[in-house]
């Protein structure tokens, strides 16, 4: 019995990766008629993988090292192995994506527009891909899971049901392929140069400054598309507009996190010299994204464009936190990602239950909600405020840590980020308050109240949102050391200066940045 427990515990992470795949196989094997069965199976497996990732999150010590490592030899002649493991950050991301996946099954529960079975297969393989890439510490494995995830989401977008959905899927495929190609080439070079596909070993390999600049350029393009950086966000808007509520949730709640995670785990620690070289550019992009997103919120009319804009804005802030190279800011960025994901799940699920048309609602459709469905109005306000970073709710801890931290190292950008956050909060408050308490729209019957299992689910999500707000210490403890390790790696500036005359070869000069 003990041996069994031992076995399960050592392969816990692999289990989390495999579970959705098993689910996908089962859903695939279901008879074609069983669309209803497919969503139940999908939900069960998403919940199971949520449970697994929560166990992992509980078991992770938060030492800053990779824990629960599981290694199998794979393609040994190239130094490729199946190597998975988690630290606090990846465990948190793992929980976030399975949480998002479970919510997204619920969000599209009654949405029978396009083939239910295929949709759920894609959702589960997508979850497998995301889980896998958050736990991979082998670059080749990372790329494989990356492709599995992107192909699945491409299929999910294409199954949106609208005619334009296929176009959106193709656009997504093109952007994902560009991102993938940039990543593959960079990683191939990094691996060949370091002689291994083990990402952790890359950090101790000394890449030359020029190498770092090219590597970082490629990786930043790859992850910047997914993040999305302002300017590269076109795919996100198109994909979200034409997709089902569940797909929207996965894209905004989980997929964009891959971009930030890529910067956090690979791009920035790998190329510290390039980070300092491109510092201004990254910060400008980050702040521009935050501000641009906030302004898009003001301009947004329908629900989906508003939540997309919120996501762009918040991901800009996340990048600001990472690029500030400060412990608090990095930890805050990670927490903000988690908070954003959870609150977003809540608000999309709520909007989907309110409207019969599964999320295709304009904000003014919610007019008078406070009078007709007070509970729904309360939840709507709660989730919006959490997204806006109100104290006591999920977004606050991350956002405040992030801005405080970045204020110490990148003051000007931090102030700009703060104004972006404030702008976002104002815009969201005006939008939501204006619609909740405004005059009721003409078509009384359009908005349903929130009842039954939807209400229960939303209550659970709301509890998580509040819990993350009032007691962020536990999560912060999990990610704190990893963030420190990230900052330490990304800040070591290595410069290979050309050898002075008379000296053979080149010498390596290290400095540890300007502040402790």
């Amino acid at each position, binding site marked *: 019995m003990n041996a069994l427990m031992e076995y399960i515990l050592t392969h816990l992470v692999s289990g989390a990766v495999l579970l959705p795949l098993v689910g996908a196989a089962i859903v695939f094997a279901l008879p074609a008629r069983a669309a209803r069965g497919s969503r139940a199976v999908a939900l069960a497996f998403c919940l199971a993988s949520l449970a697994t990732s929560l166990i992992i999150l509980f078991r992770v010590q938060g030492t800053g090292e990779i824990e629960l490592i599981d290694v199998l030899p794979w393609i040994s002649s190239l130094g490729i192995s199946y190597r998975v493991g988690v630290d606090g950050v990846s465990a948190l991301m793992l929980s976030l994506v399975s949480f998002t996946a479970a919510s997204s099954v619920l969000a599209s529960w009654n949405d029978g527009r396009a083939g239910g079975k295929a949709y759920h297969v894609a959702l589960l393989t997508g979850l497998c891909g995301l889980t896998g890439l958050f736990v991979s510490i082998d670059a080749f494995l990372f790329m494989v899971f990356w492709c599995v995830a992107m192909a699945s989401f491409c299929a999910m977008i*294409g199954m949106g049901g609208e005619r334009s959905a296929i176009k959106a899927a193709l656009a997504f495929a*093109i952007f994902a392929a560009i991102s993938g190609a*940039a990543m593959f080439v960079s990683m191939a070079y990094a691996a060949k140069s370091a002689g291994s596909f083990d990402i952790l070993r890359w950090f101790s390999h000394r890449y030359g400054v020029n190498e770092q600049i090219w590597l970082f350029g490629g990786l930043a393009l790859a992850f910047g598309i997914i993040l999305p950086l302002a300017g590269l966000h076109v795919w996100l808007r198109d994909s979200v507009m034409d997709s089902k509520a569940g797909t929207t949730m996965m894209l905004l709640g989980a997929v964009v996190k891959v971009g930030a995670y890529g910067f956090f785990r690979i791009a920035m620690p790998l190329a510290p010299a390039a980070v300092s070289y491109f510092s201004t550019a990254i910060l400008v992009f980050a702040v521009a994204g935050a501000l641009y997103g906030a302004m898009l919120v003001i301009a947004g009319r329908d629900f989906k464009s508003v939540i997309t804009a919120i996501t762009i804005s918040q991901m800009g802030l996340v990048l600001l936190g990472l690029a500030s190279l400060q412990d608090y800011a990095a930890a805050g960025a990670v927490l903000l990602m988690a908070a954003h994901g959870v609150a977003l799940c809540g608000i999309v699920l709520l909007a989907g239950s309110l409207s019969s048309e599964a999320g295709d609602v304009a904000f003014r459709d919610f007019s008078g909600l406070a009078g007709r469905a007070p509970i729904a109005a309360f939840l709507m306000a709660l989730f919006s405020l959490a997204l806006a970073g109100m104290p006591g709710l999920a977004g606050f801890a991350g956002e405040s840590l992030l801005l405080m931290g970045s204020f110490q190292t990148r003051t000007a950008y931090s102030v700009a980020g703060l104004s972006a956050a404030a702008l976002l909060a104002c815009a969201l408050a005006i939008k939501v308050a204006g619609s909740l308490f405004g005059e009721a729209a003409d078509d009384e019957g359009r908005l349903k109240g929130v009842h039954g299992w939807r209400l229960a689910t939303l209550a659970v999500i709301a509890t998580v949102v509040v819990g993350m707000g009032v007691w962020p210490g536990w999560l912060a403890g999990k990610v704190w050391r990893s963030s420190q390790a990230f900052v330490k790696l990304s800040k070591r500036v290595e410069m290979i200066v050309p050898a002075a005359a008379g000296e053979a070869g080149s010498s390596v000069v290290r400095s540890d940045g300007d502040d402790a």
Partner: protein
Amino acid sequence: MNDSFESTALAMLLESFSPLLVLLVAAVVALMVSAFARRENSRLEPAIALAGILIAMFLGWYVWPRAGAVSVPAMAMDRLALAGLLIACVPSLMVVLISPAYFAARNAARPGFYSLVLLATFGMGTLMACRDLISILLALMLMSMALYALVAFLRGRPQSVEGALKFFIMSAFAAAFYCMGMAFIFGSLGSTDLSTIAHRFDYVLSGEGRSVFLFGLAMVSSGLALMVTAVPFHAWAPDTLDGSPTPVALLIATSAKAATLVAFLRLAMSIAAPGGVLWHHLAWGISAATMLWGALASLGQSSLKRLLAYISISNAGFLMMALPSLAIAGEGMTRALLMYLIAYCVSMAGAYAALVSLGLTPGEPVDVRHLSGLAKRRPWLSAGLTLFLLSLAGLPPTLGFFGKYYLIYEAAGAGDISLAAVAGLASVISLVSLLKPVSAMYLREAVSGRRAGSLRSLQVHRGEILAVMLIMALAVVFFGLLPGNLLAFVYSSAL
């Protein structure tokens, strides 16, 4: 000297060339059988061809570990040649398996087809073992003679005849270029042996014969580049591949290309090191242009067969990525080339088997649109075709991904990061065009009308095609996930 030594040497020689000899014997036997067969669609001829190729593959596999011990002038059955033969035999085997159903569905079975396939395969095997410009030319002719006849095999169709004629004329020009180049090279350095060329390269370059020699080299390379379908010598390929019977198109797009590439590789290996920057830039340009041009042109194709033809051109560019950096990382690039060849041949074989099963006739402009909703009508065929197309596009967990990735990995390692970046760009572009049929099958509703009907009417349901697709699909997925054994094979096959 003494008899026993000579007889041992002869035995070793026979042994190392046995795969080729078996192919030749099988071709002759198949020809005889077809000449005396009573019925036109005799099952005996494909059976002989099948057996011949299988025995040749087995012998190749058996001889491979101790290959290269003996050689005759101008030829050597080393591990590279044997590995190339094994790779080229896979599509030939698939052609033999899928052709009976293809011709039976069109009532076009005629004797001689399988013997020609065997002869072409024999030519390919020979080509890959050649180490002299003259023997390369002879083997090239041997291979293409058989292919001309195969392209025009459905002679009633004007597209077939057109394709064959284009192929023939272009090949004739290529052969003429090649002969002229050979003469120039011989004139400038006095030999056509590849190792001698490598040896005297520097000497010639610094002497008076420089321009004559370089001109000759360019001519010889362009003769080979035509068969590889490198841009700008690719123009015949889409028409020929579109017009030929689908199994033959597979043969031309994969085995013939593989064989010519191995010969090209041998030539390149002897001139890459002394050629230096000149060779690097030239090969870089051809490879990049082929990748990009094939991928870009495939974007505009609406016919599935033409789409695959352009994808095969683009893949030729990928294969030629191995050529520029041969001087720096010859072994690594050769491995990567072999790996990519395996991935490419297997994926293409599967895709063409699916085309046969769809019932596409030569030259018929079957639009990608007509695949709409195919996933509902024939789910397994659609799944298989999707797998092979994605493998061609280089998406994991397929062999195509590993092949492409390994190639990029080696190219980046050899310092050709810019070529790797171009390869990345070209894969993105070809992915877009390969996703079109996939999205048509899965995401679009079926179109009603005459065209959709005609697509359904010629469907070929046969066990052999299913078997081919199944074997290829298993290979694509299994080796995509666990390429270790293939990698070991490729490692010890590289020179």
